[in-house]
């Protein structure tokens, strides 16, 4: 099919231009004003932002093992509605993605979807934090990110060995920063509210000490390091300093850490339970401010589906995690303030994460196309149309995800994905799966 996206604000890496985008044979064929629509299906995009489809660095697709909450297919549909062209499937499945067989399985499931599904492999076998997973073999399958997410690698010696091993492979390690001794038993942010509610706190210190530790290990052994879902001002300050030094450190924040504070836990609603926890308002403000300074490479969802029966348990027994894919763009738009810059918006949701996941170039071994396009002719046609004027409400019953554990049910949102084109195919149009 050939599509002509007419009259949108085309968002490049450094600026915007009102232009048409012609998509043909899976490629952005032409970008410019007044393009010829002959033979093309015309999509009017006036008033909308047209840019590279989003890339999520942090998606829990729950397959294999917990398909009652989500599977690759349902997660991909949710992603498409959220404007995503590529998702990085996290390895904390059951069993964990720590072998060729398991990674191949998820890649094969991903290939059946309309999206590009990349896989992050486990750093250690079974995510147990003791023995290194076969990173070289997994890298040969196209795995570019490794993480034990859900847990951080607690043992500093194991983390050092992992970094030493990963560096020459050219892959990036991604750390869930929480020291389990300090966070033990904690279910929400440690602060005045946790003390008042009688809920055990997970202190910011648990995150910050591991950020500090891993930056120091990186300085010693080299390589590429990514920090998952950073949630505190101190964490960002350390990342910023490390980057100034020239260390290859990247960082993501989640939509929830930039739009919700720990006050959301005041009514003991487990929908707001997540690790790292929602922080105090000062940290939320610091994270929002940092979105535009370049220290944050990506807004990544940490989309964490859970079945209703689990999320309905008492707060301390309920699992941590919340959905993200279908609301992330609107929440990022909100967090960017009163007049969001479209270049920053696409940097956080597409180009930045594509760079971190090494998805800027296509990978024929696994059939993944190139993401985070500059929106020029010749690039793979992974494109999203985002309408920054639409006002809508989160609705847990209107999600494509199999799970319903969104903390944004009923919340007023601004800005919505209208159209998602992946590899030249119209996957979502007018906000609906095609």
């Amino acid at each position, binding site marked *: 099919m050939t599509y002509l996206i007419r009259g949108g604000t085309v968002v490049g890496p450094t600026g915007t231009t009102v232009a048409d985008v012609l998509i043909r044979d899976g490629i952005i064929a032409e970008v410019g004003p007044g393009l010829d629509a002959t033979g093309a299906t015309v999509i009017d995009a006036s008033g909308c932002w047209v840019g590279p489809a989003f890339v999520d660095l942090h998606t829990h697709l729950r397959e294999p093992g917990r398909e009652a909450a989500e599977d690759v297919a349902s997660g991909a549909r949710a992603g498409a509605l959220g404007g995503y062209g590529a998702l990085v499937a996290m390895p904390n499945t059951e069993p964990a993605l720590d072998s060729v067989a398991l990674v191949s399985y998820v890649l094969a499931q991903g290939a059946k979807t309309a999206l590009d599904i990349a896989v992050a492999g486990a750093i250690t076998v079974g995510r147990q934090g003791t023995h290194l997973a076969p990173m070289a073999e997994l890298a040969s399958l196209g795995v570019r990110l490794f993480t034990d997410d859900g847990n951080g690698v607690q043992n500093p010696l194991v983390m050092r060995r992992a970094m030493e091993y990963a560096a020459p492979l050219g892959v990036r390690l991604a750390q869930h920063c929480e020291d389990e001794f300090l966070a033990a038993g904690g279910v929400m942010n440690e602060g005045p509210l946790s003390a*008042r509610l*009688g*809920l055990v706190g997970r202190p910011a210190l648990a995150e910050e000490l591991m950020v500090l530790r891993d930056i120091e290990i990186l300085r010693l052994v080299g390589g590429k390091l990514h920090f998952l879902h950073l949630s505190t001002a101190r964490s960002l300050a350390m990342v910023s300093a490390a980057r100034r030094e020239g260390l290859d450190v990247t960082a993501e924040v989640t939509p929830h850490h930039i739009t919700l504070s720990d006050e959301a836990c005041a009514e003991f609603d487990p929908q707001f339970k997540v690790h790292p926890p929602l922080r105090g308002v000062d940290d939320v403000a610091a994270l929002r401010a940092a979105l535009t300074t370049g220290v944050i490479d990506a807004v990544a969802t940490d989309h964490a589906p859970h079945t209703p029966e689990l999320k*309905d348990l008492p707060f*301390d027994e309920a699992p941590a995690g919340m959905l993200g894919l279908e609301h992330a763009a609107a929440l990022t738009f909100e967090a960017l303030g009163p007049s969001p810059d479209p270049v920053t918006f696409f940097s956080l949701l597409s180009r930045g994460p594509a760079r971190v996941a090494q998805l800027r170039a296509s990978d024929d071994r696994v059939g993944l196309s190139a993401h985070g396009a500059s929106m020029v002719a010749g690039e793979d046609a992974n494109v999203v149309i985002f309408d920054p004027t639409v006002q809508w409400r989160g609705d847990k019953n209107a999600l494509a995800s199999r799970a319903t554990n969104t903390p944004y049910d009923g919340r007023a949102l601004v800005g919505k994905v209208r159209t998602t084109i992946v590899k030249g195919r119209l996957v979502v149009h007018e906000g609906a799966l095609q």
Partner: protein
Amino acid sequence: MSLRGENLLTLAGVSREAILEVLDTAESFVEVNQRTIKKVPALKGRVVASLFFEESTRTRLSFETAAKRLGADVVSLAVASSSVKKGESLRDTIATIDALGLDAVVLRHKSSGAALQVSRYVPHVRVINAGDGLHQHPTQGLLDVFTVRQILAERQGVQGAETGGELFAGLRVLIVGDIRHSRVARSDIAAYTALGAEVRVAAPGTLLPSDLTGWPVTVVEDFEEALQWADVVGLLRLQNERGTGSFVPTLDEFTFTHGLTEERVALLRPSTIILHPGPMNRGVEIDSRVADLERSYMTRQVANGVPVRMAVLYLSVAGTKELA
């Protein structure tokens, strides 16, 4: 704001007037408990479910006695396990009991917030929190202030209700021990301060809440000095079952720093009242001989549990919600 027709989930934010209404109502029920026939038909035909998901003897007996003395039918379920271990979710358990036709649930649960969560499951049922995790134990807070008012009023030869809340103005309350893990402390602090008392807390550094911002209390630096200051000393049970082992080096050490020993009792002024919510760890937070002193009102606290819980059930279940 009154408790009439409302849930009782927490004492945080509950007004002085609402607390005094409970105390005055409880006082009228004290007399009922002294009759030969200790029953009034205030809740006749109503069904109260007593759901204890965590071990408790005294609180459960107290609530069930209170409900029965009001003429209610009591459905009792004691399950000392988490909902997960039990295999049935809290929501399903509540739905099952609710299907029997309930007017009120008295809930004890190891999870902070469980009572609030249950109140969302069954909005048509009145929920009384009988202790949720480390969060709140509102009826304990109420019976503690009731007991203090009763004792102080007796000393003046008047009824507590005649004094309203005036006996709490400037009353000096010292709460000692495991504040961090204590739902009793959270409820007590709310109750005492709502009535105008001044509250100080004394504990080893690890047993203070991790963040006291917004708590209307002062942390005492000198325990002995605070004992001389206090009108009321409220002890807390050292919560061994909550992993307190790693919070203090040894029980002996806790006794050394914060136990109410005979030596320390000698520092108290003659009028000072000693309270403990029970069950006591004799020899740990309180010396056994101190526990048996006349100024130690633990038995009175237990006795007052029944009329206070009668008042709570009566107001909450039979009361009509105030118009906003």
